[in-house]
């Protein structure tokens, strides 16, 4: 048995080291090469540029709380919301009094900011996401804010609604996932819309 122990130990050590080289270095290395050559935009984090400046990632949400932008979902990252180097959910349990209090507070703020909205509040707009970096809101959550945006930006409601429609992504093949609107892309388009309108004036 002692002899077997020595033989197997030697093989273990050699194989452990080769595995590190093959699966720890060569495999990710080759995939990085492939990614950088074929899909450089995605492989580097889907970074969006405006006038040459990096202004965000198409996949990572940003905090929007000003009245003239569509708001994102609440985020539980620390120390500030939408901290993209420290993803985190709230992890609050369903009957935790903190959760109930947070949601109540968000509902109040939302109602105050959208006084003309009488309908039910979309759940995703008052609950924090799993990653704290959710780039999307539901189409209902965007519609809920349409009147406010139109009012603040002096746009017609139909123009804002059209924009929402344009940026709504459906389910994949009509089956998988949920319909959604990317908040950063929507807000960038909104800025562009306001700009062209001001330019025409």
């Amino acid at each position: 048995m002692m002899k077997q122990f020595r033989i197997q130990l030697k093989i273990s050590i050699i194989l452990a080291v080769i595995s590190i080289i093959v699966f720890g270095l060569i495999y990710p290395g080759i995939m990085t090469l492939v990614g950088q050559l074929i899909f450089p935009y995605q492989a580097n984090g889907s970074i969006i540029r405006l006038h040459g400046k990096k202004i965000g990632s198409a996949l990572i949400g940003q905090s929007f709380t000003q009245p003239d932008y569509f708001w994102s979902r609440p985020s539980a990252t620390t120390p500030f919301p939408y901290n993209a180097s420290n993803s985190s959910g709230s992890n609050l349990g369903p009957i935790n009094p903190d959760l109930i209090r947070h949601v109540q507070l968000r509902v109040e703020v939302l109602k105050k900011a959208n006084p003309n909205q009488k309908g039910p509040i979309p759940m995703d707009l008052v609950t924090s996401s799993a990653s704290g970096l959710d780039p999307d809101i539901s189409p209902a959550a965007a519609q809920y804010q349409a009147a406010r945006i139109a009012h603040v930006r002096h746009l017609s409601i139909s123009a804002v609604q059209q924009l929402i429609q344009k940026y709504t992504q459906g389910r994949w093949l009509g089956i998988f996932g949920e319909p959604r609107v990317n908040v950063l892309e929507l807000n960038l388009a909104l800025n562009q819309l306001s700009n062209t309108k001001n330019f025409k004036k």
Partner: protein
Amino acid sequence: MTTNQWIQLIVCLGVLVALAIPLGLYIAKVFNGTSFWGEKWLGWLERFFYRLGGINPQEEMDWKTYALAMVLFSFIGGILLYLQMRLQAFLPLNPDHQLAVPRAVSFNTMVSFVTNTNFQFYSGETTLSYLSQMALTVQNFISPAVGIAILMALIRGFVRKESKHLGNFWVDVIRSLVYILLPLSVIFSGILIWQGCPQTFRGSQKVQLVSPLIYNQPVTVQGRNTTQPMTIIHQSIALGPVASQEAIKMLGTNGGGYFNTNSAHPFENPTPLTDLLELLAILIIPVALCFTFGSLVNDMRQGWTVFAAMFILLVPMIYCCIHFEQVGNPLLNRIVTGSTKQNPEGNMVGKEVRFGVTDSSLWASFTTASSNGSVNAMLDSFTPMGGLVPMWLMMLGEVSFGGIGSGLYGMIVFIILTVFIAGLMVGRTPEYLGKKIQAFEMKMTSIVILIPPLLVLMTTAISVICGGQGVLNPGAHGFSEILYAFTSMTNNNGSAFAGLSGTTLYNLMGGIAMWMGRFGIAIPVLAMAGSLVQKKNIPESTGTLPTHTPLFVFILVAIVIIVGALAFIPALALGPIVEQLKMIAMTMH
């Protein structure tokens, strides 16, 4: 459940089985001892491993040598991983300047990745360097390969007659790596990059926010805690070689996320398409192995039996989870819509909009039925009954598909228990696949079945006695967090009610539970294989209990559920069940 939810569920399960059958037959080809077409493509890599390792692929091992090789290989891999994490600050590929990982966390993480558990008491993007992440990737490959090897040894225990040898551990591991895990991972990570998973060695990207953010930063002024408004104009986006790790994390029933929030993070799981593919990747190899088993024992009906039993254990649980998450949290529904009845989106706390309730619940069930343990929604924020589903699926012993290899050998142990109980009822020596089941096999079976509940309940009890530190949520939910953590670690799953923070006690005790939960089961299984392989084959007679009938599937499922229920119902009653009752009571006033 809505129509769309039914369609998603049925299509997903249909595609899964349709892909798993050919994969299972392919895996059987890899291990049936004859050469096959894959060797033309990748034989050079296989031979490269043999040559450098000084391995003679023709050499056969008895069960003791096989077990020795398995333990040594895992142990050495673990030590290297531990050193990497402790020394990462001095090693290359650390663009974000991470410091050494603390001792207890390193120990827990090391055991976690070596045992195919991938429980994480740390947050990836704030703790690990790129090199450490890549070192974890190595164990992501090796630990499922070891699982397949143990399974193959057990299958040979049934197939071979009057022999001592169970095959060669190194050959089984290397062939799993070269012909199954590596090619699948390369293809899958390519798809993931295309869909948006980063794959880069550059450090985090700093971008300028479209709308600056003002938040109240807590500060201490003259010894008093207060806040001071602070404007954030930049976002620092963590990146890294994500796709390559993500692929094997999903395929290898690993589940250890690159980022803190695992597959909920948009960089790990950017679109509904990646979500579907990752869901399939969770279960595809464990499901395929059922058919590999059928093919290798030369009786596909046996494979279908195992598949049917596992499937029946899983599907009602998916239904439960989707149902309760869709109904949502009545306390929040009341605030948002004015009625406690369901709202259209369901329970969205800790869920991502692109997945919604359906994909999140599907994932929670898949990931705990297999021993994957990744999450795409925060299980801690599920409704009490929705959160009970993943806990229950783990408590069954990770046998409704389970981990790669480990799920199937766990189920085979349950089958042996079933033929034993059935044999007692009719007063005949039990047998399975032509091998007599005798005292030694039953001893090993008892060990395998008793270890997980024993470990889970003891470690949970010790944690609670020690004051239940580190819990985030008050009351019954806090208990659920602890119970979940040790259920997950012992059964080598790796998912978590993530509100629980890792104290030194949890890190150390959890590390021991994971090690025992893996090798305390793998070694008795190998010992059983060593005993079975020496036996004669007894031809089937009229007195043999057929193990491929619906009746047998029924008894098997019943026994798995009864064992799980007997062990865990009292603990569940203190956690999710009492929380559900409390929630109903709170809804009433």
